[in-house]
């Protein structure tokens, strides 16, 4: 009887540890979501740059055939196709949520890293690295916002 009881408690203790690791994995996955969001924020200047490069390429591709075909060029019309308001609005929408997303995902990342470090049965190096990266990228994005780079 004692043996069965000891076995049950042993199993339950192991299962409780598994629950804890599951919580860590879920929090880490949520932190990864925040990581992707904050990476988008941090890369916003590059996206803006790429947007203008894309516009430039399209303009060049549009201008040359028009010049060679002898038609009168209406640059205003072409520029109308690439209204920056839409992009700015989307980026602005992304930008305003940054402090909240950073707060939530940083808490998730730190909590998951602590849980993963406590788990002795498995190594979770990848997840711990991602948790650390989430916090770092979040801080970088916040600094960029404070410095006005991403406005």
């Amino acid at each position, binding site marked *: 009887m004692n043996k069965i009881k*000891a076995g049950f408690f042993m*199993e339950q203790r*192991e*299962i409780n540890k*598994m*629950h804890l690791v*599951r919580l860590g994995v*879920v929090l880490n*996955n949520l932190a990864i979501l925040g990581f992707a969001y904050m990476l988008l924020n941090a890369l916003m200047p590059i996206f803006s740059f790429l947007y203008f490069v894309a516009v430039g390429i399209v303009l060049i591709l549009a201008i040359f055939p028009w010049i060679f075909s002898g038609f009168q060029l209406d640059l205003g019309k072409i520029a109308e196709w690439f209204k920056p308001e839409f992009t700015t609005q989307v980026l602005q929408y992304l930008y305003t949520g940054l402090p909240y997303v950073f707060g939530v995902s940083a808490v998730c990342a730190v909590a998951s890293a602590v849980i993963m470090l406590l788990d002795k049965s498995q190594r979770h190096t990848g997840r711990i690295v991602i948790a650390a990266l989430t916090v770092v990228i979040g801080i970088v994005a916040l600094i960029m916002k404070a410095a006005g780079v991403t406005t």
Partner: protein
Amino acid sequence: MNVLNIAMRPHYMIKNPSLFIDGERVYTKKSKNGEYTCRFETEKDSVELSVYKFLEINGKFWFLYSILFFFISLLGIFDAHYDNKCYCLKYKTVLTLNEETNVKLVFNQFKESGAAINCTADCPAEETENEYYTDKKAKKRLKIMRIVKLLCWLAAIAIAVVVILYKVIGF
């Protein structure tokens, strides 16, 4: 002082088995050749070595925990998968130790009621349990959870449709 060196090579279907020596949980470290090794020191002349595979769904309050994680992980999107196969094992052996004993535990391919572990030790070993089995109780519980999760998803979709209709059409 007797030293017990254990090298374990688990099967890929049996993830994270638990190793116990005299009822005490022992943690292994993965070595470069893919084996999980540990070193155990004891004053005893014989120890009971046991290996088990526990399933999370077999715990107390399994339903509450499953539902809780399902909602925390945003309807299971960010949740880790449960072990659907429900393969378990129980292995117990009594080892009479030398001054330094090396034990190698190689996991066999899963076969219902078949031998789970092939043990090679440089000391006398007396196996008392060695079996693979499918946990039917866990399978049943997983099936119940699958149905509950499906119902939750249907409810969430229905709520989303109603909200969209209310917002867009003013229905």
